[in-house]
């Protein structure tokens, strides 16, 4: 509180001495206050990253020789499995993010005029752990699951052998369904909150200026929704790309997603694989961070504006 008061531009005592400086500059002791939180994150997260990096280049760990070696990275990057897993992880993460975002935009628009119950309904799946969801998908969609038995009972298929493979399948449909079940309500919840904050008068104004409903959606509603869409889809992408238990239990047996590959390498009998696992994990983080950075840059609209300007010029 005292810190806030000292930065107050109406504080007469400070006024003369700080006339030239920015009144809203953060005083040095404010940094002290965030230090505990920052150091905790630095030690647990940053420290973990540093240790992982040291192990991946052979400076630490059970099989360390004490010399810097990029063997683990070389092994990871030259294995066919890595590239297949990376492709699969990207496919699952991008598809799940894209489908859940697009469907959530539509759902949020439909639910906008619904009452508060809509937000409540969207929160129903949030506290359910992923493992429970996975168990549900298995119970429901596996060849011996509820859906298969119901169809047999109804006589639509003659035996559960005829039921299409929906879990541990090559297309990873089970994984996708699980993520959509979990993430669509989450994204819808965020977009609903953003949509409710957009004044309906913007739409009226656009319509009165000659925008049809469709143009109004593209030129006004969607751009105003963009910050919400970007942050919600980033969270979903980041989570899905790094998710382990869902593809481990519901995903295809080959190829595996990157996190599953990391787990497999880490628990390999050959201890040399451990540094490869860590290298894989760091590569996974690197890919994830670069994609998020790229997405944020694209989402900021800057590259498009640059292209537009070039087109005009």
């Amino acid at each position, binding site marked *: 509180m005292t810190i806030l008061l000292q930065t107050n531009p109406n504080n007469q005592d400070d006024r003369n001495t700080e006339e030239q400086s920015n009144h809203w500059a953060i005083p040095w002791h404010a940094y002290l206050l965030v230090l505990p939180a920052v150091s905790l994150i630095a030690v647990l997260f940053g420290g973990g990253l540093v240790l992982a990096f040291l192990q991946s280049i052979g400076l630490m760990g059970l099989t360390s020789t004490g010399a810097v070696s990029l063997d683990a990275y070389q092994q990871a990057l030259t294995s066919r499995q890595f590239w297949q897993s990376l492709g699969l992880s990207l496919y699952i993460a991008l598809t799940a993010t894209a489908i859940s975002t697009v469907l959530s935009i539509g759902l949020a628009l439909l639910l906008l005029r619904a009452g508060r119950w809509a937000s409540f309904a969207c929160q129903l799946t949030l506290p359910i752990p992923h493992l429970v969801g996975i168990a549900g998908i298995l119970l429901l969609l596996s060849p011996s699951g509820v859906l298969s038995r119901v169809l047999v009972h109804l006589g639509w298929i003659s035996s559960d052998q005829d039921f299409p493979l929906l879990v541990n399948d090559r297309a990873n449909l089970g994984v996708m369904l699980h993520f959509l079940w979990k993430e669509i309500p989450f994204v819808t919840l965020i977009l609903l909150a953003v949509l409710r904050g957009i004044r309906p008068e913007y739409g009226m104004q656009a319509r009165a200026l000659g925008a049809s409903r469709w143009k109004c959606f593209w030129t*006004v509603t969607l751009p105003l929704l963009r910050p919400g869409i970007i942050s919600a889809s980033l969270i979903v992408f980041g989570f899905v790309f790094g998710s382990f238990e869902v593809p481990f239990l519901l995903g295809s047996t080959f190829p595996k997603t990157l996190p599953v590959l990391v787990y497999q390498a880490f628990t390999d009998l050959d201890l040399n694989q451990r540094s490869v696992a860590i290298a894989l994990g760091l590569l996974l983080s690197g890919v994830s961070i670069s994609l998020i950075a790229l997405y944020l840059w694209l989402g900021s609209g800057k590259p498009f504006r640059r292209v537009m300007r070039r087109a005009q010029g």
Partner: protein
Amino acid sequence: MSETAYFSMQNLTKQFRGTAAVQDLWLDVQAGERIALLGPSGCGKSTTLQLIAGILRPDRGQIWLNGRSLNRVPTERREIALVLQKGLLFPHLSVGENVAFGLRMRGVSRAEQVERAIAMLDQVQLSGFENRKPSELSGGQAQRVALARSLVIQPKVLLLDEPLSALDASLRGDMQELILRLQAETGVTLLVVTHDQSESAVMAHRIALMFDGRLRQVDTPEALYQNPVDESVARFFGGVNFFAADAQQHRLTLAEGERLITHYPHHGTVHITIRPEHIHVMADRVCGANLLPATLIHSRFTGTQRHLTLRTSAGLQLQAWVPPSQQFAVGQSVFAHLPPEALWVFPGSATAAAPSPMAQV
């Protein structure tokens, strides 16, 4: 009716959950006319505006523009522009893009969009602002951009919803002038919604006064001011003196016993009113009709006027607004002159003249 009027509303009715927001509204507007839709908040004037813009659909009634029914025309094809209270510029577009928005929706070429947007910004005295973001504008500037954005599409009718209510008093006059100048230059038919009677008087040729979803009186500002149709209209226009009386042609006998003469003949029980600024107050008796001896019981200086409260010997209480140069002491005996031409009579069964809220100010 619609044969002669350029723009007309006929029997327009809109209900929300059984309550009429707009009830049987008839209004004819000539091309290039400036109309103010005036009324207290919640009287249905903004609903009327939304019906005209096509944002709401009427339950009943017709809207005609230039000989064409608008009822089945969607908002975007009505050629009616709308400026809302705070300007509401699209925050994700620059000022120039905001102004060009309507042109872009109409498929105008990009070069022409830029050219016309810049010319329009020039007209609202905001040259060079085209690359700014709406967040970098003051309230008055945003309102001017909103005006430019609506006028650049050359609408047949321009609707303004409380365009000045979010502005400082000092900016309000400038904005009024700008709106009037642009209206004169473009000749656009203007419909402005406001709850401020002085604003409506400045901005409009005619005022359509609305209470509880119904139009009560459509007239020039002068007529509404001096010849209101009933007491509620008079009160809305700042009327504070209301008395019950018995009329015999030009002769009035007040309930308190005072006898007065009016220019407006009537018979039977009536209510009469006189605007506070029309009452002359003087220290000495002069000759003439309608001169009432009174005592000054209260005086308040407002800067441009002195608001006096007088009580006549018969117990009649009067509010009189006099120039500040006239000074009286509280308790002083004075004479109040009520000019017969300013003594307006409402026929029939108007409700008992309770003191208006303004009388206690």
